[in-house]
């Protein structure tokens, strides 16, 4: 089949489905959708600020009022980690590379790849900057709180299982979603870059 016939076949095949656009309805719908996204982001930011506002004074207060040293250390670890987490997430949001879908395909691919790699780095390291410090802080506080050793042990096991599950979910998201995405983008970029 020659090129002209192939192009004709392509354009013809594309016309087998018809698109009807109701421009007014579409614009209204898009504006509503964008507004919902923005409200969702503002809600997320409000929740984070509220959690920070509640947890920081609470653990600050515990750091000074808990009498056992191990409890003080635990509360202080949680307090510091709350602050570090909020700062880290804010910083990640600020340095996040912005996608511009109207840029050249190669540029957009490079940008998207950077974004995906940032997300992988954040999720892959969640054990060290998020889960482990909170886990250590909670365990320290637990073992300072009462003489009921069986309760402390059972509670610690439950907390460990919970944090382990969160860690597993993050790792799974990286493996199932982000890594394949990264691999597809790398392959596409390599193809664009090779001269063959």
């Amino acid at each position, binding site marked *: 089949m020659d090129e002209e016939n192939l192009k004709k076949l392509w354009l013809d095949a594309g016309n087998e489905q018809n*698109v*009807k656009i*109701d421009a007014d309805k579409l*614009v209204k719908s898009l504006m509503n*959708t964008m507004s919902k996204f923005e409200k969702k982001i503002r809600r997320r930011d409000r929740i984070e600020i509220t959690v920070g506002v509640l947890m920081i004074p609470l653990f600050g207060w515990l750091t000074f009022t808990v009498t056992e040293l191990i409890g003080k250390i635990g509360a202080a670890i949680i307090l510091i980690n709350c602050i570090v987490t909020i700062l880290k997430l804010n910083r990640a949001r600020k340095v996040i590379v912005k996608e511009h879908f*109207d840029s050249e*395909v190669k540029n957009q691919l490079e940008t998207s790849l950077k974004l995906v790699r940032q997300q992988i780095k954040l999720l892959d390291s969640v054990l060290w900057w998020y889960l482990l410090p909170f886990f250590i802080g909670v365990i320290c506080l637990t073992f300072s709180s009462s003489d009921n050793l069986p309760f402390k042990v059972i509670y610690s096991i439950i907390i460990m299982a919970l944090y382990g599950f969160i860690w597993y979910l993050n790792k799974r998201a990286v493996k199932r979603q982000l890594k394949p995405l990264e691999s597809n983008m790398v392959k596409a970029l390599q193809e664009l870059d090779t001269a*063959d």
Partner: protein
Amino acid sequence: MEEDLKRLFSSIMEDNKQRILRICRIYAYDNEDQKDLYQEVAMNIWKSLPSYRKESSIDTWVYRVSLNVSMQYAFKTQKSKQNRVHIEGINIHDENADLHNDLETMEKKKRMYECISKLTYAEKSLILLFLEDLPYKSISDVKGISENHVAVKLARIKKKLTNCINH
């Protein structure tokens, strides 16, 4: 200002609606995914419009947005149905192709889509710009690679595609 943007967006969507659909058909395989992808392209055209600076023609610009969104969509191996956005104002329906085509033409079209589906993501994006009858300079503008590069790659992809269709 907003009214100007709305008018420009409406005219872009009306002028490019079939073009966008042809691209979506390559990157989304079933009707539901095609509609989902079409909506994402429309949303990103709307979002990107304020930054359109007329350095390129509007057609080139639309191809860039459509391809970028479509490739991102295709790259994601898991698409959560919960995150699908429902946007009103877009209606995609099948024309009755059987009335217009003989059996041989229908077979050729089916074969063409099958062969295109076997290409890699990058090859698909290049060949569909070629099939859209864009000159190499415009393809180079959309892709961000040199014209020479486009020519060399397209020569290979065209050969691969026609060999596949003819066998």
